[in-house]
């Protein structure tokens, strides 16, 4: 575009002779990005800084009294509050249970549904539908299915002679139940990412390998899997972050119970901030969560870099 116009670098407009073209262009671009930038500063950077500040205060929302307490909220969470470590433990169990299960299932589904055959779109839609289903409706239906004796799941189990547990009322089973129902709800998203990645791999590679006598497993292990690497990394990072941030699902299914068996970090932060109105403490916990998730992400990136 610049080539079509006369060179105007020294051209100055008569009404604003002090502005060079470069300055004018810079101003224009700032003006163009200013709406997004303003939104980013006001709704993202601002609250982020505010949370850091809040986390250093003891602030009761109702009385509106805030006192600066330094790092007290942090040291209380890390060293004096036994609930905190219980909550972290739950969050880690949730992530360890959810991430591999979700990824394995997503990859299997993607491998099965990445080809072109009659009805494939219907199958993809079926597996993706839960992603767009309301979280509340999802939780209500599963709560029905997972009832103690009258629940559909336990009746099915009973018909083959298995006495199923009261899924959502026993701490360990409740954790397993929330993990599995969450995986079923969210797996469609990762499946789509994997399908896209699989379809981007040229077919020639597999065809060539087959000509050389490679088995199906060898093709997957030595060709497909390495080429899926970048996608796998992205999926692992977002799924891990998502699993640490899980809130709505826990809120609807178990409310953190039974016996605090599914009390995860995001729900605990909600409790402190929005039920006890202890905003300072909740902010400190949110900062801790931020650091934990960031460290995990960096760790995964480093791991990936070392792989390649």
């Amino acid at each position: 575009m610049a080539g079509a116009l006369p060179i105007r670098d020294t051209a100055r407009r008569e009404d604003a002779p002090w502005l060079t073209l470069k300055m004018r262009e810079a101003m224009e671009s700032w003006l163009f990005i200013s709406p997004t930038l303003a939104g980013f500063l006001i709704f993202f950077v601002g609250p982020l800084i505010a949370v850091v500040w809040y986390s250093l205060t003891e602030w009761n929302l109702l009385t509106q009294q805030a006192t600066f307490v330094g790092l007290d909220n942090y040291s209380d969470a890390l060293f004096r509050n036994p609930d905190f470590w219980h909550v972290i433990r739950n969050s880690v169990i949730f992530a360890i249970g959810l991430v591999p299960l979700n990824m394995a299932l997503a990859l299997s589904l993607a491998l099965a549904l990445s080809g072109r055959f009659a009805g494939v779109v219907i199958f993809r839609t079926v597996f993706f539908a839960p992603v767009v289903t309301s979280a509340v409706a999802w939780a209500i239906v599963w709560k029905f299915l997972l009832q103690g004796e009258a629940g559909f799941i336990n009746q099915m189990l009973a018909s083959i002679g298995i006495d199923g547990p009261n899924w959502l009322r026993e701490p360990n089973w409740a954790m397993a139940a929330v993990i599995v129902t969450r995986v079923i709800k969210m797996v469609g998203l990762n499946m789509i990412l994997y399908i896209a990645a699989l379809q981007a791999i040229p077919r020639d590679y597999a065809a060539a390998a087959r000509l050389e006598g490679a088995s199906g497993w060898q093709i997957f292990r030595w060709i497909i899997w390495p080429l899926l690497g970048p996608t796998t990394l992205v999926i692992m990072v977002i799924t891990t972050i998502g699993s640490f941030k899980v809130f709505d699902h826990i809120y609807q299914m178990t409310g953190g119970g039974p016996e605090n068996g599914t009390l995860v970090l995001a729900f605990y932060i909600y409790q402190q901030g929005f039920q006890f109105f202890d905003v300072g403490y909740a902010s400190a916990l949110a900062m801790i969560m931020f650091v934990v998730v960031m460290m995990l992400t960096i760790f995964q990136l480093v791991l990936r870099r070392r792989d390649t």
Partner: protein
Amino acid sequence: MKTTMKRMTTTVLALGMMSGSLGAAELRFTIWTGNEAHLKMLNGFAESFKAKHPDVTVKYETIPPGDYTQKLTFQLAGGNAPDAGWLMEDAAPTFAAAGVLDNLAPALNKAQGYDFADFSKPALGLWTAGDKVYGVPFSTSPFVIFYNKDLFDKAGLEDPNALAAKGQWNMAKFQEVSKKLKDATGKWGFEFKDGQGYDTRIMHALMPPIRAAGGDVWANKQCGFDKPEAVAAVKQLHDMVFKDKSIVPPGEQGDYFSGGSAMTINQISRASLMPKAGFKWGIAPLPTGAGGESPVIGQAGIVVFSAGKQKELAAEFVAHMTTKDNVAAAAQFFPPARKSVLDSDAFTKSNNLIPPEQMKVVADAISKGKVLPAHEKSPQILAAMKPRVDALWRANADVEASLKAVCTAIQPLL
């Protein structure tokens, strides 16, 4: 579109009036009902307030009950305080202690013919401190037993009202009847309030039997869950859930209102669900226990917020809403705390779903009842209790040990 236009016009008008020299004002009043009949009545109060203040309008703002306390707190914290509003009983001590409620005593004393002494003393417990009045209770609604008459008939049993008339409606009978109902009809004998007795309504599940047994969940800053009366009462409930299998157990559904259970415990506002239920029903008092009759009451009050900009006017409106006439007008929905209204025939005949002799049950319970326990730290106490109560509701639980654990957890907060 039309409403948006209307709203905009109102806003523009309101702004115009505010900037003008007229003394026009708008009071913002938060509530948790969206029921049209309720709103019609409330708007009626605003209309009649114009007799004295022709230029004052009242804007009611509905916040869903589940989020009410939370959203209200955020409005107060955000510097956007409403002028007045409803407040739930469990939030009352927290709000009063935080100093966000205005003292209504001067306005109530000034109001002509108000007669504050007409309010039943026990009903004011949560809302007064010395001479100060932080709220006026507008709904003082006792918990009653709702029963499914069809299921009682099917099981060949006398209904709770018949038993109460003979003086036999006690906890032992309640247990016996529940089991017989379950065995004869296959439906659950009893369901806790809204099926939430193991989750959000723990207090509503444990409180009535504990009080019937002569205990309390706490009193004078001392936990009462581990006292012998409470342990005995909870053991009985535990037996009903796991041995008799007559109470809907944790993790199961047995909705009373759709015929899944023969009895439940609730307030009369739920009677509005009954016409759709499709079975014969009635309400009866709570069963008595070793502690005699001990009705339990749920409450809500009207308060004025200290951070509001029109406190005096708002307080005057609260006084207007709670005059004898207006309390009587509201009684069909919200059982009153005014003795004069409670004793009147108008009250027992006010609800067209519940026959007068059963409304007497409600009136009796209000005059004899005690409100649900509330505490400055209610949310923390409930959160601390929850995991220990979860442990209680297992088939093989040691009830006494679980209740001890509840006390260990909540005692520091009391």
